[in-house]
């Protein structure tokens, strides 16, 4: 008689082998992920401006963290980053979902469409940001040309010169780039849905809308949450898009851009590390919230 709590010698042996097999991966993870994060945390507890080696980099406890909350710029950046994250992720979810539903239908050339839709995602962000910077240019930008021809604007505008224009430009560019990624993740989920459910619902007289809300949506909860998790984390850490497209001008500085500036331009490793740790904590909390909604399903196998 065996119970689950009493393991046989064979099982214990298996577990040992499993740990052994995982050891290299765990080792690498701890060197390239755990160590830098712990080190960053350690630095964040010090006054450490590289430009001031004479200070001896004293330990100052949580003073850097307290400073963040009185730093108007950091607060503004966090608010902007949250706003950017919410707007882009919501738009990407709707557009991605719609695109995935279309791609899930059987039609001629579906393979090509699926490949083509991924192109924006495949282009490195800094390259696409440069490209969009040209598109928004006030002299020869395509964005102006198209709107002008459509009669929406009566003259060329410098879109990146105002706060609202810059925000809009960033959102459009980010949605253009990452909605396809969202679509692909959702499409993978859609393809797992059992066709029989739809068949029987159809027989029971459910129309398209009813089928969508009673079958597709509930069954898609998990894949959708996974897709949203990835996108939310990515959007919150936005760096390259902003750095290239606006350089943080017109109130579009994200918290990552600011942290990078503190670390690499101002050489304030103490305060910059505190900002980096703060970003890590927020990202961690976001992950936990999603995990909560997923009901821990990601870890379990039932």
């Amino acid at each position, binding site marked *: 008689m065996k119970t689950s709590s009493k393991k046989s010698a064979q099982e214990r042996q298996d577990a040992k082998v499993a740990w052994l097999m995982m050891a290299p991966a765990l080792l690498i993870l701890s060197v390239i992920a755990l160590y830098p994060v712990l080190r*960053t945390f350690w630095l964040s507890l010090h006054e450490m401006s590289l430009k001031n080696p004479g200070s001896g980099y004293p330990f100052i406890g949580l003073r850097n963290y307290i400073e963040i909350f009185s730093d108007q710029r950091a607060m503004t950046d966090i608010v902007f980053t949250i706003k950017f994250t919410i707007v882009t992720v919501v738009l990407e979810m709707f557009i991605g979902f719609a695109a995935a539903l279309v791609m899930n239908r059987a039609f001629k050339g579906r393979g090509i469409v699926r490949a083509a839709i991924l192109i924006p995602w495949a282009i490195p962000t800094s390259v696409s940001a440069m490209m969009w910077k040209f598109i928004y240019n006030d002299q020869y930008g395509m964005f102006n040309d198209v709107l002008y021809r459509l009669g929406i604007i009566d003259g060329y505008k410098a879109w990146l010169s105002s706060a609202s224009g810059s925000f809009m430009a960033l959102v459009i560019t980010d949605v253009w780039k990452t909605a396809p990624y969202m679509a692909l993740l959702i499409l993978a989920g859609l393809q797992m849905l059992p066709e029989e459910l739809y068949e029987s619902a159809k027989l029971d007289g459910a129309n398209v809308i009813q089928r969508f809300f009673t079958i597709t949506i509930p069954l898609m909860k998990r894949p959708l949450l996974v897709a949203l998790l990835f996108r939310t984390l990515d959007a919150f850490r936005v760096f390259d898009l902003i*750095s290239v497209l606006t350089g943080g001008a017109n109130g579009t500085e994200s918290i990552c851009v600011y942290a990078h500036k503190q670390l690499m331009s101002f050489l304030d490793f103490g305060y910059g590390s505190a900002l980096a740790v703060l970003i890590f904590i927020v990202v961690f909390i976001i992950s936990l919230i999603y995990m909560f909604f997923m009901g821990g399903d990601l870890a379990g196998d039932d």
Partner: protein
Amino acid sequence: MKKSTKKLLAALLAMTMAFGLAACGSDVEPAPAAESAAETEIEADGEQQPTETAGEAEAPADAVVINFAYDEGVGDATREMIDKFNASQSDIFVESYSLPHDANNLHDDFVNKMVAQDTSVDVMALDVVYVSEFAAAGWVNPMDDLYTAEELDAFLPGTVSGATYNGTLYAAPWFTNASALFYRTDLLEQAGIAEVPTTWQGWQDAYEKVKGDVDYAFSFQGIQGEAMVCDWCEFIWSFGGQVLDENGTAVCNSAENIEATQFMADLIGTYAPEGVTTYAESESEQVFKEGKALTCRTWSGTWNVFNDEAESNVAGNVGMTFLPVSEEGDTGHSCMGGLDLVTNVWIDDAHKEAANTFIKWMTSEETEKEFTLISSQPPAVKAIYSDADVLEKIPFYTDFFAIIEAGNTRPLSPNYAEVSDAIQRNVHMALTGEQSVEDALNALQGEVEALSK
């Protein structure tokens, strides 16, 4: 699997994700080139002869080997000079340590080395704006004894003051750069303007006469970035303003600065494109190249590009002059860029001495002339601008010398990166109209004051 284990695993998984994804915040990422603090504006020259021997020749057995770290933007020309130096004597052997063409990248690399007390480089080519930072941190050796007073006089005055911190010379001027006002000679002729205007008003009047042919009077750089810091400094200088006074005290919200910044902001959307607040050098130059603007403020080396028929619609009709001033009779001051040579503070005396010998040789008139001929970089030594061989190759130096001689340096602060960032954010808000000029400059004053404490 127990429920608690599962929960733990879920949390662990979330952690790993966060670790991997949060890395952006703490990682060292190179700043984009657009943000580059240096306006070295390196011009690729088709006539450069890549040398194959550099770095491959063997050092003589008893020679002191020193490593010279420099910007790949002038890589070929520099290697040629190094080879020449190595061939000229046998006591010192210079090895190349070439870094990517990006001033911020160079800066970060040097900072890392200095913090780690690394002695792998002896001589560094440092962007002029960072000399104060390095001197204040004690990472570079003073060079007071390297040059006699007469020798220092041979350099452009702006390059020497840029290499000086708290009254001590910490760097040797290697090459420099300055901006200038490029203008359309054909349009001035057409409008019957014989004398090239010198004031803002003069250029505005000239524009009124040629309005039908061009859309704008001025094209410059107003992007939130280092390029705009240079432009803004020039605007305030042209109204008699300053960022820091002689004692290093912040004077950002002076009446002159407010007037100058207001003038700059008012030009945007009227005499200059609305989009200048998004322009770095290339965008502003494009407007001029397309023939849409009467003038364009940019770096001297662009003369070649503007006069290249393959790239520019206005080739052959481009002149170069001083930046405009507000009062007739004043001289326009251009912003200076370029690289200085500094020595690592951690190296031993034998290396220090060898490094100084090499620097002295690199900055001699003879070497600088040769370097100018192959790299087309404006030299730091005055006499070269009137040298016949140089003028034959770079004819615009005739006009350019007076401009660069009147060049000014950006504020010399050990916290230059922060000062520049504060100027970028606050002045940009004034230029886009998000804040009144006065509020923006008051905010800037507060920030710069806090930085100079």
